[in-house]
């Protein structure tokens, strides 16, 4: 009986240790083994359909948390940095938002919210962003009608993914900064913060 108790306790301890490892792994980032590497892609594969100084096309997309959100939700309240990323579970994208996550004080210093957008569906985005830890900004799905918002901004690529693109919309809803990056390269945070600084001048 004593031996049976020992075995039960050992098993329980093993289950606890195992659960701990599985739970904490997600909070500390995405396992490299889970990343799909598409290789080097055509740097830019779309044509912008918006310009600086124009009113940013408004939209409402469902966020991972279930709310319908768009730049119009922050009109008169916050600047909005729309961050399109090409696809979940791919190399550069999987790092980009975790970087913006720790840069929260910088964005808040300039009264700016980030809206992350991908053409992936919500379940995929839920699983993917869950592995990044707690993101402080909303992540929106542009899955259906597929890539409608990406297309509206002119950043939908011919393979159905979006560009790695940034659009800064000021509190009046005007586009003040646009950057369509080489899809294979992460845009420099310094450049983004410079664009926020320029807004406050």
């Amino acid at each position, binding site marked *: 009986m004593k031996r049976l108790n020992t075995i039960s306790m050992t098993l329980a301890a*093993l289950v606890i240790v195992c659960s701990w*490892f599985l739970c904490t792994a997600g909070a500390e980032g*995405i396992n*490299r083994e889970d990343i799909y590497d598409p290789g080097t892609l055509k740097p830019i594969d779309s044509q912008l359909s918006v310009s600086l100084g124009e009113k940013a096309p408004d939209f409402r997309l469902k966020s991972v948390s279930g709310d319908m959100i768009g730049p119009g939700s922050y009109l008169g309240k916050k600047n909005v940095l729309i961050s399109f990323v090409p696809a979940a579970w791919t190399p550069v994208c999987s790092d980009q938002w*975790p*970087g913006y996550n*720790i840069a929260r004080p910088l964005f808040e210093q300039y009264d700016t919210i980030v809206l992350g957008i991908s053409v992936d569906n919500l379940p995929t985005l839920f699983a993917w962003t869950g592995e*990044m*830890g707690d993101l402080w900004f909303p992540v929106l799905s542009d899955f259906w009608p597929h890539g409608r918002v990406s297309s509206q901004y002119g950043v939908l690529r011919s393979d159905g993914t979006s560009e790695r693109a940034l659009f800064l919309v000021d509190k009046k809803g005007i586009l003040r900064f646009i950057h369509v990056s080489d899809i294979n390269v992460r845009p*420099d945070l310094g450049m983004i913060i410079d664009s926020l600084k320029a807004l406050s001048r």
Partner: protein
Amino acid sequence: MKRLLVTTLFFMVLSMMPVPGIADCGKMELDFQLAVPEEQSQKGYLGLDDGKTFALSDIKADMVIIEIFSMYCPICQAEADKVNRLFELIQADDLLKERVKLIGIGAGNSSFEVDFFRKNYQIPFPLFSDGDFTIHKKIGEVQTPCFITLAPDKDLEVFYCREGRFKDPGQFLDHLVKPLKSPEDTP
């Protein structure tokens, strides 16, 4: 039978745990240059002369620990406090603080990003930017974080390299500095 069951389960659990990767130490080209830090204290810490750039072999130490990190890497973010603790342990040891130096290289991180990472996690040891991944490519595109130890005065002989997180800074440091200990130091 029961012992067999427990043993099997134990190894099943072990196999599910995340394990650190082993970087390919043999393929590392370490003959790159880094910018001399502007801060006098960091220049002094590494024992560098004035100048614009330096090589790893210019660092005055018996061992250099290099952390390859990225501001964007969630594991590097989560490990930052532990790496700071590693530095504190080295500095608290009168023998080690003269012999072992710790630096970080931000793979694909601009100077702005490296500086933000430094401020955000209050990192006390020198960090360097590798904005265009030049160094990262030279050392075999290791995953971040990656820890490399080498001897600057012995043709940059690499003692150790390891990708991924570590558990306890004290134990990790003991392991890293083993090559510095003479046989008579070992109990």
